[in-house]
């Protein structure tokens, strides 16, 4: 199970990680740990599934990819079939069932922006239900930065 040191690591490294020759040593020093302990702990947190990833959070559109949020209204009786079909698309990154008339919400990530429309059309034709597209128009985010 997680202990206090794990919590400190997670809280601190959610806000950033240094980019330098010995980043684990630099981060560990700030946390009062050794480089070896920090590396070992991160490995275990990944192995235990507490962390899904350790590294960069990449901005898809800046890389030239397409990204959108899409939703569908699917009758309960048909939901399992549609979920299976939607999940089979490699472009579907997350898929959630939610409490709403629009009950299926998923994120589509494509290599190029213009492919989003084709994937949506393919999902519509394969499932038989319309897909509502909610592309991002503006992003509001918290920017944490260490003052030098």
């Amino acid at each position, binding site marked *: 199970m997680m202990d206090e040191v794990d919590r400190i690591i997670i809280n601190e490294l*959610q806000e950033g*990680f240094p980019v330098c020759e010995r980043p684990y040593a630099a981060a560990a020093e700030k946390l009062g740990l050794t480089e070896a302990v920090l590396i070992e702990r991160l490995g275990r*947190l990944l192995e235990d*599934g507490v*962390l899904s990833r350790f590294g960069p*959070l990449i901005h898809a559109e*800046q890389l030239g990819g397409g990204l959108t949020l899409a939703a569908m209204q699917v009758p309960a009786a048909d939901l399992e079939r549609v979920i299976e079909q939607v999940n089979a698309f490699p472009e579907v990154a997350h898929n959630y069932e939610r409490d709403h008339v629009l009950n299926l919400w998923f994120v589509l*990530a494509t290599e190029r922006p213009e492919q989003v429309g084709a994937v949506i059309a393919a999902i519509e034709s394969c499932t038989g239900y319309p897909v509502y597209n909610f592309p991002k128009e503006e992003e*509001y*985010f918290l920017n944490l930065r260490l003052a030098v």
Partner: protein
Amino acid sequence: MELNVRQRRVDSTGIDAHDRRLLEQIQEGLPLVPRPFADIAGRLGMAEAEVIARIERLCGEGVIKRMGVVVRHRSLGYDANAMVVWDVPDTRVDALGQCFARFPFVTLCYQRPRRGARWPYNLFCMIHGKDRDAVLDKVVELTEACGVGEVRHQVLFSRRCFKQRGANYRRGCP
């Protein structure tokens, strides 16, 4: 610590082929070795200093939003997640988006298009909490702090999550 909320429009940056190869190498995670950038540099036939300089530049340009840990919320006891959507007057959407984004429990906040009468909402936030009541408390906190008591909104709790992976930008992933 400097804390500021920024608003970012998506714009194009000067990413070259080396940047793409570098991002492909690190998108699944940094190597857990004392000099991870030297390790990546070795795989790419680049110098460690160049890898570091490129990553710093990509961070500065916003291609990399941040470096660090990505937590699996459920494994930390955050069992409830809700998409909270608001029907905000267009003239207030930027101010309210910035207000919402200041709260640490708001993990994502986007303006998205309305879709007619069946979907009048234009501001979307993700809120994580230990349970549904905790999420609802946070929605009240946001409502009061940002002065949106009169704004129509809905809380869409997740029932099930079927697929969760980081977006992968290479072709042919499973």
